[in-house]
């Protein structure tokens, strides 16, 4: 090895630092600074005032939106985890290696199809005169209102997060040493108890990380709550869009964005601390 810091080493090490400083850290830091700027006559002036913060934090609708977004993202994270688990369990323990590989290959596909188009598709499927209600109507049920409700938003969140959560859970569960489960069985643990007392503790880290991803994605998504949830009430991402696009109030949008980042940071930190915490000695 030649671990010297020569021109060769710098050629490979520096580009990303420069790039991220200019186009990643720069924007983020500028956005934080912008939350203290002034807007006068529709023009932004660089300043350091608390006005935007005071204004946004004193508004009831901002807080309504905050708790609604937080609650919906938590619900999405929980729902995705619960819906994914039986599927991940089956793929990890009840199928062959090659089936699992194909399943994961297939689950990666939606990740690369347009989320917008899939949401539009759900819009058409869930609508009052849509495919589901047409099907239910044929057997004398409905119609049910699914669009512009929290249910619609949740369907959108699942579209976004479920494939990823199934993949992460499957990989985690498949990584558990099968002899661990066998040992529990041999020691007389009934099958229904192996999941809570053997499988879940062994898979804790992966399960929590999967749930965290679902939370982050849902928390930051504007498509599902806007198109399927009818923006009633608007979530924080919708608030950012409205404030940015309509009112030219970029500093106020920056306040919302910073609040979102802080929230995510706290939750991610807590989740990761929980995921990697060792169990107390038994």
């Amino acid at each position, binding site marked *: 090895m030649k671990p010297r810091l020569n021109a060769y080493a710098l050629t490979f090490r520096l*580009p990303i630092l420069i790039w991220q400083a200019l*186009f990643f850290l720069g924007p983020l830091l500028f956005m934080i600074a912008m939350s203290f700027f002034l807007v006068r006559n529709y023009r932004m002036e660089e300043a350091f005032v608390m006005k935007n913060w005071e204004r946004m934090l004193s508004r009831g609708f901002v807080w309504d939106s905050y708790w609604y977004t937080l609650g919906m993202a938590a619900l999405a994270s929980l729902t995705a985890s619960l819906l994914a688990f039986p599927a991940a369990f089956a793929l990890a323990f009840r199928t062959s290696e090659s089936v699992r590989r194909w399943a994961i290959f297939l689950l990666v596909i*939606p990740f*690369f199809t347009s989320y917008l188009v*899939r949401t*539009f598709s759900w819009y058409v499927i869930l*609508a009052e005169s*849509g495919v589901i209600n047409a099907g239910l109507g044929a057997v004398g049920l409905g119609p049910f209102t699914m669009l512009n409700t929290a249910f619609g938003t949740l369907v959108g969140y699942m579209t976004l997060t479920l494939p990823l959560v199934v993949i992460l859970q499957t990989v985690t569960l498949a990584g558990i040493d099968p002899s661990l489960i066998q040992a529990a069985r041999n020691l007389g643990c009934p099958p229904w108890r192996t999941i809570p007392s053997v499988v879940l503790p062994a898979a804790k880290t992966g399960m929590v990380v999967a749930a965290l991803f679902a939370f982050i994605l849902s928390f930051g998504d504007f498509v599902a709550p806007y198109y399927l949830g009818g923006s009633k009430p608007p979530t924080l991402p919708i608030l950012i869009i409205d404030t*940015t696009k309509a009112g030219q109030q970029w500093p106020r949008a920056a306040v919302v964005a910073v609040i979102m980042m802080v929230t995510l940071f706290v939750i991610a930190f807590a989740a990761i601390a929980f995921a990697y915490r060792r169990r107390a000695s038994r």
Partner: protein
Amino acid sequence: MSGRAGTWVLRGYVLLVFAFVFAPIVMSLIFSFNADRFPTIPLGGFTTHWYATIFADDGFWRAARNSLVVSACTCILATALGFCTAYSDYRYRFRGQGAYLGIILLPPTIPLIIMALAMLAWFSRVGISGQVYSVVLAHTVLTAPFAMAIIRLRLERMDASLEAAAWNLGASEWRAMREVILPFCRPAILSSLFLTAAISFDEFTVAWFVSGLNKTLPVHVLEIVQGTIDPQVNAIGTLVFLVSMTLVVLAQLMIFFRIQRSAP
């Protein structure tokens, strides 16, 4: 869950999950050929009207061209940056390496809407907003982590003594890079090019904020969707799906099969 019955119930459930995941994709494909303006069951007649509509639309072609340019430039830049970073991490041990990796791996964990606002504000301030290249700059930040991860995984499989052997035989570091490292990483580099192109091709939040009037295809779709129920979207979606899938399948072929074949 034990025994045969339990296993079949679980398998049935897996199929249900797949049905949920693929329902919107399949529906969009079917509805793109459906004559009704508001698609429902029973289906209307077969038509290629929606495809004819988009092919006759200048806005569609402009957006498609922008998207192609953006994803082509993005995939090259992101892969180059990802390669440099992956190699630095593989070859060297240095102080602050954790922070170094954090800086490249962080962007995907930040909601796109936040990146969109931050990039719009900064790009406007510096005067590089509203151009096709603005989207390239932004997308490179967003996709470089994936390039880095793919190439880093490939390097993990390389025998560390290979590079050292080249040096001992008198090759310079640059020549060892050209004749040992790069050829070894080729499948990962190709795979990274396809994958980052696919991600860039579908990204709409940041593109919507920073592209100004130079819309990309997903932004074009976003604007149609904001208006009315227009089955054009299904036709565009199906076309975009074909392009993305081609890229992703190529990428996965590179990852899964090339690595397997060259593994000892």
